């Protein structure tokens, strides 16, 4: 897959896809989207980048091992569910608050962090599998 066009365009395509995946993740609560689908988009972005430019640049760009990202996501999800315990409510009860971002009111919730955790788990797990498979291909 070492065509010049693909290799030139892949980094831009991958960046756009990652950006889009974050957009999909954040809009998920009200519009089609969410952590799972966002994670899949980001994972395919990294897979494409890897196919085009090799695995090493992807690993450098990710900085952390993808499996560590996955574990971090699971931790974030579990912890976000634990917040409600301090409010004397059952585990995973959603907690909402409103903060001001540049004069705009934005709803922030534990549910959002839960979804971000889902996103990281999906990105991490799928990317680590894809990268491992791609590595074998070039070895």
């Amino acid at each position, binding site marked *: 897959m070492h065509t010049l066009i693909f290799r030139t365009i892949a980094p831009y395509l991958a960046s756009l896809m990652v950006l889009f995946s974050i957009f999909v993740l954040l809009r*998920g609560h009200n519009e089609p989207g969410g952590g799972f689908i966002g994670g899949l988009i980001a994972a395919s972005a990294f897979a494409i980048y890897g196919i085009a430019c090799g695995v090493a640049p992807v690993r450098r760009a990710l900085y952390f091992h993808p499996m560590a990202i996955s574990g971090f996501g699971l931790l974030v999800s*579990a912890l976000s569910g634990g917040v409600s315990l301090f409010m004397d409510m059952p585990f995973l009860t959603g907690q909402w608050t409103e903060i001001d971002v540049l004069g705009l009111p934005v709803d922030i919730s534990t*549910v959002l962090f839960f979804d971000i955790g889902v996103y990281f788990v999906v990105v991490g797990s799928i990317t680590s599998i894809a990268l491992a498979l791609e590595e074998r291909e070039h070895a």
Partner: protein
Amino acid sequence: MAADGQWLTFLVLILPFLGAAAAPFLTRVFGHNAAWVLALFPAFIFYHFTSFLGAVAEGETVAGGYAWIESLDVDFSWYLDGLSLTFALLISGIGTLIVLYSGGYLKGHPHLGRFFSFILMFMGSMQGLVVADSFLMLFVFWELTSITSFLLIGFDHSREASRRAALQALVVTGLGGLSLLAGLLVIANITGAASLSALLSEGEVLRAAPLYMAALLLVLGGAFTKSAQFPFHFWLPNAMEAPTPVSAYLHSATMVKAGVYLVMRLNPVMGETPAWETILPVFGGTTLIIGTLLALRQTDLKLMLAYTTVASLGLLVMLTGFGSEVAVEAAVLYLVAHSMFKGALFMVAGAIDHETGTRDITKVGGIGSAMPVTFIAAVLAALSMGGLGPFFGFLAKEEIYAGLGFASGWSILLTLTAVLGNALMFAIGFAVALKPFTGARVKMPKAPHEGPVLLWLGPLVLAVDGLLAALFSDLSHRFVSSPMASAVAGEPLSVSISVVPHIGLPLLLSALTIALGIACYLTLERGRAAMAATLTAIGWGPDRGFDQAVRGTVRLSAFVTGIVQGGRLDVYMTATFIALAAALFVPMVAFGELPTMPALPSLPFYELAVLAIGFIGLAAVLHARDRLTAIVSLGIQGFAVALIFMLLGAPDLSFTQFMVETLSVVILALVMTRLRLSPADHRPTGQKMLDISIAALCGAGLGLILLRVTQVPFDDTLSVFFAENARVIAHGRNIVNVIIVDFRGLDTLGEIAVVMIAGLAILALVRIRPGVAPLKAEKQPARAVEKVEA
């Protein structure tokens, strides 16, 4: 019971575990003298439990605890009556002495801290077991004693004999534990009781129930393995591989009595039935005789004591099952006496081993002048073991003979069994206590001299206790024997026997026992040779049977694994999909739930077009010459399905379907290149036909079941609930996402955990180096297991 006392008892129950956590640090700071500090833990527990003596002696019981899972009727609760209190006092009291003794015995051992930790953990487990009220707590602590015992027996884990003994003890008592769990579940099912205190009033119901026999056998399975009754006795002598403090504590004074405790605890509920009064005396009596005979054969001090322990446990079970009130009193007295004298004798054996370098009775002699305090402790303990006055063992033995009596053929048989067993134990007890200390000094690996105070304090205190308890028999009966006997019998009993001998049948039998015992002692060498010859002639024993059973299990599982997991991926896939097809079709056909064929709907042209794209994709898959084309073509069909989702108004689903299809194609293509499969499909025609029919069946089955599902009236309770509440409760307009992250958040948490674990597993599979054949890697552990047993 007052609430403020409640937390103190709770603290006492977890205190040993706290001590276990602190032990390594304390040992690092104080060395072996940490024993003095650590002994404060059990000493405090002992002190706390003595505060209940008065109330319990009045016939009261102390209960307490905390609700744990109320909906399942599971509590963390305790129940103290005469039986559990006596056990708790024995455990903490002897535990204090054992901790001190361990400090002397294992002085300078590199893992002394770990040892203290293990033994305190065991103490906590055993204590929890005897005071537990709820069935679940009883079972959990029961298993904890097995696990801590495993750790302690295998403490010297660099030796293969230790590892084998530890594993054997764990397997035997672990199987017993499962049997006990099943028994408790049956009992709970029959009576509806979830705790021992609730069970005590349900005896009538339980004894009359048709499943009484099953419950009895299952519970006894647990009790007999734990208390080393024949034919499960073999693990106990092997457990002597453990350091001596462990043998003294677990394998004579406390843990092995857990089975006896259970039998005694259930006596008022399950006792007084023909089955109970047959099974218990038969197994107990057999164990008594076999244990003493096997003890004759040994020359190792610890093994001699271990086999007499087996015998004593048999005697206890026999007495508990006999059914008369006096026999129950006898069992209680003997249990207390045995814990003291056997614990002391074990510690003496350990001290001899520690100071002379050997514990072979034929290689030690004449050390009495060198180790006078140990000698005194040994003789005092042996006098109690031999049932001589004025020691506690004497009271126990008189009561045994009074309890069994001479009334019928059955009781005469059991009495004679007891006389024979006691006589042999008398001989062995004195052999351990006299032979090493008297006679001419022989050459030993080390020159003997008196051990430090830590080594002789424990045995001396226990041996003297055996004397004091008998001299002040009024007090010991009032506070210990009578409440405990009442709890075991299930009705108020008052023990009154004292050291003043009464002329009568029991005294006559005692005299007979002593005469026989002396005769055995004098002819010990000859008896040993005779037993050795007999055992060699028999050859096979349960110990070897255990090895054969384990080896057989390993072989069987290797055989089954060879069939079920042949290592061919295509076989796995075929089996999986055949099972899927069967699961889809069999219920539909068997229950006559096949769907009625609906009329073909008239679809708009764009939907037809999408369907057509899907079919073209499928046709391309079937027609493809090489695998890569087939994989990509499969993607076409997937995209068509995604489009259909979109057209029918499920954007989330469609979105996900697109991404999943894309990634599947990418990953399948990567896997294919990674596996270096030949591009073309080389399956023979027969195989192809089979695969096609399985695939078609699965597809048809799924299609039919979906069709059937849509023909059932739709229950929209959930949809309505989600649609109404997504905005109100969960502040989200996207119902699908709200369900995933909020309403069913726990499901999602579980799912992402699965995703991650699956990712890890796949990563490991991908990373397997082609050089290492997976089959070889699988076989290695199996071989290692076999080596351990060999």
